[in-house]
């Protein structure tokens, strides 16, 4: 498809501004002005509408395709939450309003949404307090690690490293490192769990925290999780919970009860806010009581008269991590979703997510080896290692799925599983959708023996065939330029 810039015609306009209704003042002196107008496209409103409507149709999305991208929880995003977000009282509210004298009373509705969401998330996870400020999951991780650093500093300690399993999300070590910590990586044992011998050896008074995903990225719930937490606490370290996989355990167990001290959630995963093509998400952070004083400012508080206000007077706080109160629009959608599902609905969500993932695993295990041969929680990791013997990679199987209208699973993650395919079906997909997807994967497994070329050449039905990624990286072309 042509770029919008290639559709530009000199003099064409797509939008009319109001006429100037004030007397014309002299312009700025030349020194402050740009020499030429920015060369934005000159297109009509219909040009723009058709361009982006047609572009949208080149994407797979949850609303058009099954999207079992592991670790991303691509569940259905209820439509009414979009409508709620667009209510003028929410969408037009200036974030600085409650910071004006007397302005707090002008934002009571939004402050109540934030307060209620923090309370609900605390109860769902068993944590003492929450902040909704982090703007994404990885941003929540960074905030969490900053809280951990502030806690140790307050105790007069400067601990040096954070322990992270080799099966973790890449964001975990990256977040720890950019906050100033060294990373100690613990291998996975033969059963697919954290290697306890290596863990005990690594744990010391230098350990600031242990960062874990639970269930982990292999889709397993570690029955030794409590022991791991107790050992960490014994060494004075804190336990960090990566909430990417919370959709597996709603109402079944709570990170706070297990002994996690800091957790982040991904509202765009467990709480059904749209992924937006890669954001905006939201990564609220919950803490146990001893860490509450360090949470970012401002804090939303409920006064004795039932009104809500912002509290900036927290001298132990790590400070501002976002300009305001978080991605309010995303938080509002998650709040609406939680109210809609309620207690029973949340539990059913996890039960059915786990049911669907195990169903996929059971039907596929004879064709693709399940990682570590175990039953899973809300997602299953399969290996295409035996297909590789025929020269077929997980990537080839993915491209075949695309031709059949399915978004592929997450591939090549976790890094410790050869030719990994991580399938997260979620609770909102019907059995017939799962069956069609499973049948297609079985077909690919059979084709890998009978006709591997059919997999190597896929996809054939998309707007483009396989793209040259090496060329993209070696000869970076990162913007359009007028020839």
């Amino acid at each position: 498809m042509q770029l919008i810039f290639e559709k530009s015609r000199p003099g064409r306009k797509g939008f009319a501004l109001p006429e100037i209704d004030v007397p014309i003042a002299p312009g700025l002196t030349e020194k402050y002005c740009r020499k030429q107008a920015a060369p934005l496209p000159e297109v009509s409103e219909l040009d723009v509408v058709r361009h982006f409507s047609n572009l949208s149709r080149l994407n797979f999305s949850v609303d058009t395709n099954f999207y079992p991208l592991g670790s991303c929880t691509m569940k259905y995003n209820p439509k009414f939450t979009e409508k709620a977000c667009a209510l003028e009282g929410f969408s037009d509210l200036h974030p600085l309003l409650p910071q004006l004298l007397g302005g707090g009373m002008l934002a009571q509705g939004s402050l109540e949404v934030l307060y209620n969401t923090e309370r609900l998330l605390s109860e769902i996870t068993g944590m003492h307090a929450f902040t909704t400020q982090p703007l994404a999951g990885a941003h929540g991780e960074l905030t969490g690690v900053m809280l951990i650093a502030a806690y140790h500093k307050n105790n007069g300690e400067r601990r040096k490293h954070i322990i992270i399993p080799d099966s973790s999300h890449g964001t975990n070590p990256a977040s720890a490192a950019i906050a100033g910590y060294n990373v100690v990586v613990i291998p996975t044992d033969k059963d697919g769990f954290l290697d306890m011998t290596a863990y005990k050896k690594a744990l010391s008074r230098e350990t600031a925290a242990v960062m874990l995903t639970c269930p982990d990225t292999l889709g397993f719930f570690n029955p030794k999780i409590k022991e791991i937490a107790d050992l960490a606490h014994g060494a004075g370290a804190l336990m960090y919970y990566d909430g990417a996989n919370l959709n597996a355990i709603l109402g079944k167990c709570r990170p706070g009860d297990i002994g996690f001290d800091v957790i982040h959630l991904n509202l765009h995963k467990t709480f059904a806010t749209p992924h937006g093509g890669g954001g905006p998400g939201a990564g609220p952070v919950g803490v146990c009581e001893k860490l509450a004083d360090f949470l970012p400012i401002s804090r939303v508080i409920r006064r004795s008269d039932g009104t809500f206000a912002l509290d900036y007077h927290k001298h132990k706080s790590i400070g501002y991590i976002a300009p305001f109160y978080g991605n309010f629009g995303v938080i509002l959608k998650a709040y609406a979703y939680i109210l809609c599902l309620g207690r029973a609905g949340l539990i059913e969500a996890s039960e059915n997510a786990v049911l669907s993932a195990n169903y996929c695993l059971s039907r596929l295990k004879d064709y693709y080896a399940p990682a570590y041969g175990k039953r899973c929680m809300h997602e299953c990791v399969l290996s295409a290692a035996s297909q590789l013997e025929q020269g077929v990679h997980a990537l080839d199987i993915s491209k075949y799925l695309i031709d059949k209208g399915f978004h592929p699973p997450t591939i090549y993650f976790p890094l410790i599983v050869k030719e990994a395919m991580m399938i997260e079906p979620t609770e909102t997909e019907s059995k017939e959708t799962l069956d069609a997807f499973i049948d297609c994967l079985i077909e690919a497994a059979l084709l890998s023996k009978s006709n591997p070329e059919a997999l190597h050449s896929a996809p054939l039905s998309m707007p483009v065939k396989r793209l040259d990624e090496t060329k993209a990286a070696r000869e970076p072309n990162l913007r359009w330029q007028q020839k």
Partner: protein
Amino acid sequence: MNYIPHTELEKKEMLKTIGVESVDDLFKHIPAELRPKSFNIPEGKSEFEVMEHLKILSRKNATNLTDFVGGGFYDHYIPAAVDALAGRAEFYTAYTPYQPECSQGWLQAIYEYQTVICELTGLDVSNASLYDGGTALYEAAMMAVRLSGRKKIIVDSGVSLIYRTMLYAYTSNLSIEFVETPVVHGQACREDIYKHLDDKTAAVIVQNPNFFGAVDDFSDIVERVHKCGALAIASVYPVSLGMLKSPGEMGIDIATGEGQSLGIPLSFGGPYLGFIAVKKEHMRQLPGRIVGATVDKDNKRGFVLTLQAREQHIRRERATSNICSNEALCALRALIYTCLLGKSGFYELARLNYQKAEFAKVTLDKVTGVKVKRSAPTFNEFTVCLPKNADEVVCSLIDKGFACGFPLGRFYKGLDNYLLVAVTEKRTKEEIVQFANSLEAVLCS
């Protein structure tokens, strides 16, 4: 309502295939002592009931104020086509385009967004977006530290206090030295910047227009910064770039900013859009996703995520940033918005903002006891000195239907009588005159 399609019969079939009796069997391995101590969540409600609750809450927010509050976040008009197109579920229910063949729509849109950001800033390379203007500035500072191998950063105090506070919070464990230089006559103080600039300096950070609304040309600062082997970073307000000298024209190395003003609702602070653009030689230190053009097997143009060797999913603790997602949907809104306005429209928008603000300056200056600060030129926001505490004036004007500005005393000591006033294209001549009249009334009473 739980959005689960499985019927009881289907559940039974699925359990049978798995080889277990009940769903509980699938959770059996979670030890009993780890089961929830409580799970006290209200029972679910229908969509209708939840919507009614939210409507009531939304009405507890003020929506009828005439808005002169800016401070980096502005009340601009959003064309309906932006909502209509960004509201297409084929965009908003997709995820990061890991699989390029079935994500060409998103990839092309991001490539186009990157182009627009480069054109506005006058720089060579943009990434696919960051969370907001503050985190973008932090990422820029970290880029400068990596590129220069130095750890001292000079920050002009005309940079938003919100962003400076974020910068200090993020780097509190990294032994980076920050030096703040004062604003003199409304603009960045050259003398003080040069005094601190040395061979340990990684970067100088400035903002245009600055928090007080003053416009500047940093070309002279940039020249001195480069002589020291440091980088020049500018946080900029994108709508002003319709008219103001671009960071690229000033020689700036890294430009960042808050993209909210490009078709994104104020929405009480988010989701917003951080943008970052750099000179070509710095692109391999950029954080986050980047989209590049390439060709497919048939030599047909297509788009992919590229330069991924910088990123956390490959480099883990050695990545340039921990960023995983971006703010794609907000970037899409900014792209659609700038395309609708187009080359001449975007200039006209900037001009309209400037002219309305100039009129407001003249009008407010006539109010008894009010003095508009005129030491430096401004774009669409400016500082006024009031004869009494700005907090109280703001409070009184709220009762008259105006959010009349941001009291600077909240962020700057000694400026208790100063008010920061923003005027966008949405403010009419009549509203500006009414604001001045109400201010006169409040000050006289």
